[in-house]
């Protein structure tokens, strides 16, 4: 629980998904009917990513002071799994999950930081066993990163993951009663999140480095996109089979200039309306015109923007 945190907004730093660091400052304390305001959106090239103290310091120096900091981890630094929800009192949930995770772990004694979020089905499918998302990261790794960030002035109040950041964006795009699929890409691959009433029901990630596509011919690129489209269709089917009360009505594709033609390919392959993400519908970018004008920066900052939306109250 982030009680009292981020009531005005966040400065979110994304340390993964690209050979660069990204920071977004978002003001979420806005009037009714107004969009959150992007106060800063910055990208800093870095070969070593989160370990680049100088790059981090330079990045943070350009963000507004006073907002709490948030970090989204690289995908390689955390684990995300769907598990049956233990039938235990809430105060015993953490220990129960830790025990269940340790049984499947290669190193059961390894200390982990744990978070979880339920997949809501109890109202629509009360007879179905409940499931939840469990997110883990090695404690030692996270502690080392926190120590490395501190000299750069990065003292995060929250450590989040990419899937929940994308969930926040999809949830903000949802229309009443519908389920939504959001497709977003980074340098290492393409990810899907399926949301309904603001909650995450399914996530998929397809590893497909941009570097491979850059040297691929048209046929190879087509095969790569075909694989993405197939995976998306299977995911849509999986959602409909697993959660019959959910109907995915739209697929929203985030900006992905590194993968030209993918939105059109998906629109042709997926039996649902496919729309491009208009970030301006979601946030006010008037103060940061370079973000409004750059699909590449939007693509890079998408996770950070989504993570910073955690301070936004649901309508």
């Amino acid at each position, binding site marked *: *629980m*982030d*009680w*009292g*945190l981020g*009531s005005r907004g966040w400065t979110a730093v994304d340390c993964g998904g690209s050979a660069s660091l990204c920071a977004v400052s978002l003001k979420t304390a806005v009037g009714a009917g107004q969009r959150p305001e992007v106060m800063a959106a910055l990208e800093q090239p870095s070969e070593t990513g989160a370990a680049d103290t100088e790059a981090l310091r330079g990045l943070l120096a350009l963000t507004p002071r006073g907002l709490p900091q948030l970090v989204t*981890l690289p995908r390689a630094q*955390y684990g995300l799994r769907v598990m049956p929800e233990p039938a235990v009192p809430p105060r015993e949930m953490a220990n129960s999950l830790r025990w269940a995770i340790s049984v499947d772990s290669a190193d059961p004694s390894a200390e982990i*930081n*744990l*978070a*979880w*979020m*339920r997949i*809501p089905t109890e109202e629509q499918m009360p007879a179905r066993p409940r499931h939840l998302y469990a*997110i883990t*990261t090695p404690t030692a790794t*996270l502690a080392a990163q926190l120590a490395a960030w501190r000299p750069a002035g990065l003292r*995060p*109040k*929250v*450590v*989040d*993951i990419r899937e*929940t950041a994308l969930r*926040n964006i999809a*949830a903000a795009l949802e229309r009443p009663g519908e389920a939504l699929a959001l497709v977003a890409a980074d340098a290492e691959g393409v990810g899907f999140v399926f949301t309904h*009433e*603001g*909650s995450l029901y399914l996530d998929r990630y397809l590893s497909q480095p941009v570097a491979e596509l850059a040297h691929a011919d048209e046929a190879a690129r087509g095969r790569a996109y075909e694989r993405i489209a197939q995976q998306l269709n299977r995911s849509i089917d999986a959602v409909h089979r697993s959660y019959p009360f959910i109907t995915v009505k739209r697929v929203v594709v985030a900006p992905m200039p590194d993968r030209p033609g993918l939105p059109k390919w998906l629109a042709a392959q997926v039996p649902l309306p496919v729309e491009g993400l208009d970030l301006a519908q979601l946030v006010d970018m008037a103060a940061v015109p370079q973000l409004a004008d750059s699909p590449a920066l939007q693509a890079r900052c998408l996770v950070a923007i989504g993570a910073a939306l*955690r301070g936004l109250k*649901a*309508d």
Partner: protein
Amino acid sequence: MNRPAVTHINLLERKTPTLSLGAVLAAVLALTVLGLLVHGRQTVSAAWQASARNEALGQQIKDVQAKLTVISDEKAKNAQSVALRQEVEALQPRARAAQTLLSAVRNAEGGRGDDFARALAAATAVNEPGLWLTNLSLSAAGKRLELQGQAAGGAPVLRFARRANDSLQSLTLRLDSLDMQPATVVAAPSAGGTPLASSGVSFRLY
């Protein structure tokens, strides 16, 4: 239908929730109000105790006043008793004198009868303030009368002697001689007053 609350995760696993400024201010305000309530309660309790103490002291004062009243009444009664006793004591000499006179009369009555009775009636018919008789004797076959007594001074004795002679004239008796000696005479007190012991005279008329 309202959208269910969305769960936001935090891998920092913060053990204690971070408090916002508003929450801190609210906590401070709550503590202040709590302190005021406790202080107010203590103040009210102290005031109540002081009030109870005052009431107890007031009751004690009333009790003491009542005891003082009783003591004053008893003192007044005692004073009256003392005054009465002193008055009785003051009257004792006169009572003894009267007793002596009565004894003398009885003795005399044993021998003589009418003569003595007439002499006694004539002598005691004279009422002189500040003088009282202590003895009366009749001798020489009823021809000689002797009176003894006490008086506050010589003047009452002289007035008594003159008036007694006037009264005894019809009995052919006369008191021609007077002996007076200084003596201590206890005067009867005024009402509620203290009897006074003063100088007087004892006398003998014959």
